[in-house]
């Protein structure tokens, strides 16, 4: 019973924090970083919760949303973090995490130089 009360209390307190959590960012970020309340900018797809739990405790999700890698590239990044950055063994979650990352943050075929993108044309006085 006591445990249940604590659990209710925590859910109440945490729901207050949820209001804060989704407060809009007041600064500029790169395009492609999805603004939402729960995924911290990550694309909502199978595996996103595992990514949040395992990755966001050390670094911003912006390290993910900025980058584009193949499955091999993401795997090598995970190995590098395990070897040098104190990332733990992901166990059986690793396969799903790799699928999530490589499907949602994959490199796209681009040329050597892309067209210039102008967000807002303005009249130069």
């Amino acid at each position, binding site marked *: 019973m006591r445990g249940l009360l604590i659990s209710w209390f925590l859910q109440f307190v945490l729901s207050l924090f949820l209001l804060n959590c989704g407060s809009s960012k007041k*600064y500029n970020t790169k395009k492609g970083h999805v603004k939402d309340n729960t995924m911290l900018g990550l694309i909502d797809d199978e595996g996103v*919760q595992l990514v949040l739990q395992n990755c966001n*405790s050390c670094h911003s999700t*912006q390290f993910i949303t900025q980058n584009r890698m193949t499955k091999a590239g993401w795997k090598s990044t995970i190995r590098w973090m395990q070897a040098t950055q104190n990332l733990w063994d992901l166990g059986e979650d690793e396969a799903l995490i790799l699928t999530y990352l490589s499907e949602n943050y994959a*490199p796209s075929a681009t040329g050597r*130089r892309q067209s210039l993108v102008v967000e807002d*044309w303005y009249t130069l006085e």
Partner: protein
Amino acid sequence: MYICCVSDSVMKRRIFLKQTGLGLASLSGLDVVFASSMPKGYIPLIGLQDPFKELNKHKQMIVLNDRPLNIEAQAHLLNDEVTPADKMFVRNNGITPENIDLNNWKLVIDGESAINVSSFTLEELKTTFKSYTYQLVLECGGNGRSEFNPPAKGNQWTIGAVSCPRWTGVRLRDVLERVGMKEDAVYLAYHSRDQHLSGDRKKEAISRGIPISKAMMDETLLAYHMNEEDLPLIHGQPLRLVVGGWPASASGKWLERLSIRNIVHDGAKMGGQAYRVPCETVAPGTVVPDEDMCIIESMPVKSLLTYPKSGALLKNQKNLEIKGHAWAGELVVSAVYYSIDFGAKWHLCQLSAPVNRLAWQHFKSEIQFPKKGYYEVWVRARDQNGVDQPMVLPGWNPKGYLNNACHRIAVKVV
């Protein structure tokens, strides 16, 4: 207070974890792995009420990453001849230190090749050694990484990880000469107060350095002022190295200790793939073993059009004044050219001399467009050895360093 949102998909319900001053709590049976090593009291930028106000950054600066903090400028923000603090990029590898006790702060100088291991308070540094002021270019080694294809891992800098403020401090050389160096000294390493992202106290976020020959140059400073003011916290308070013309990662912030090494320094982000490029050029996408990577030293020739901002519409006029800066690592820029026809023809700009060695130089020109239409203005600098900036991404490398492809802006004459 920053709130971290985590969901447990197995339990089919969301549980929100609050990061407290004591670290992440364990709630309702969901344990946060390594919660005990979360940095205490750490408040990521995302949780600040107004991050730009707290960091005194211009509101048009772009946040690439809020943990670790990485913020870049846009080209048009860098038009000042001396970069103001609010428009200077931020590149952190770890967590910004807090509560630095300036009264008890000391810089320790040790290492295998130090003759007299010494320490100096800030006051002792200021009163013992002569101060010098130089305008010095700091550019992140990964500036321009966003253009790499295949993509390179890391913060996706576009063009804004460069700045040229005025730095005041003491010459590293004077301090090293006071301490004394053994004949076998080869490298000067820094150790800083910023904490590793994992919160592991035994790990350094970054600990790089420079060869003794660079450490002994007149312009290599231990700086305590930026643009005549105390170093802002985010830029290394109370003391940082400033190593002009080299990857800015050599310019360690929040200094606590310098080590005079008898080997090439082996600290965090000196080895592996960090701040290193293939010793021999490779085809895009090549996996390069660590032992075939070489440390980046001087940065390549580069330029930036800072006026006008890209996207200018010229109405009832066909003339346009352009302005910007050019720099070339250890070298001087000998010429800057512009093109309005995608590099088919190049025209010389006016170019100023640097105010001191390793400062950027300013160029300007007046363009006359022949007729209405869409144009791109490209600029291209040449260093004193006759080496030009390439028009496209040069030498692909695994971590996306040293992109000095010429800068472009879009203009329409309507």
